[in-house]
């Protein structure tokens, strides 16, 4: 039971039409992921933790808080079973390009 990576990806794809989407599933008990927080979660199940990088045109002109709200909104059903969601990046295609390029130039330096 629980939400799969595919479900998360398909909801995000259909609702936010991302040009790039990275969705990682983080296992239970990983260091630094608040491993003790599930213990008292009232859903009672053993849900997964997801980490998302999403690039979408729709984020244009939106503050980070609004972007995160859009992602949360797209995953409203999944959130009932997801125990932890980390949106590592929610950027526009333009920002994404810039970030990729600056990473490349850093790696080359």
């Amino acid at each position, binding site marked *: 039971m629980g939400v799969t990576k595919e479900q998360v990806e398909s909801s995000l794809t259909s609702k936010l039409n991302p040009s790039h989407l990275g969705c990682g599933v983080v296992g239970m008990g990983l260091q*630094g*992921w*608040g*491993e*003790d*927080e599930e*213990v*008292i979660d*009232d859903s009672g199940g053993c849900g997964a933790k997801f980490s998302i990088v999403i690039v979408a045109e729709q984020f244009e002109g939106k503050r*980070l*808080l609004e972007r*995160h*709200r859009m992602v*949360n909104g797209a995953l*409203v059903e999944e*959130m009932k079973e997801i125990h*932890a*969601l*980390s*949106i*590592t990046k929610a950027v526009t295609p333009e920002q994404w390009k810039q970030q990729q390029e600056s990473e490349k130039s850093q790696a080359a330096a």
Partner: protein
Amino acid sequence: MSLAITVPSVFRTSPCPRAAESRTTDVSLSLPTAHFGRALRCSTIPNSSIVTGNRAGRLRSIRCLSALDPNLKATLDKVVTSQKIVLFMKGTKDFPQCGFSNTVVQILRSLNSPFETINILENEALRQGLKEYSSWPTFPQLYIDGEFFGGCDITVEAYKSGELQELLERTMCS
């Protein structure tokens, strides 16, 4: 600048929370629920689930509440403005019980900003109500100057970009 804490006592975190205690599923019932107990009776929970005294039934009812109770909303309005920085978190400032909550506590500490924390693990009605109040599904939830700022990811990003420092400086001086 007054640092007096005016958070209603019902939200105060106990001075020494023990993990084992707050990890039981009995959280919502073992707390001082005078306020929320009343609030819940005014709400739309079907009577049957209360008179049976069935704990599972009650917890389910709390989760199903669709509208934010007006009493709870009024209280939260006061709480989020009681201090310039209010953090709703899992655990306490000195004993965070979740890595995400801990991250935000460490960030606020590093910025030397006085902040109040409220342990949402101690009150199930508060925990569920806040999700609606903030339109935010998870914890921690950071309020700055009475406004919802974000969760852990947003706080981390704003800290890295320097935006958080700026905002806090402005807020503390206002």
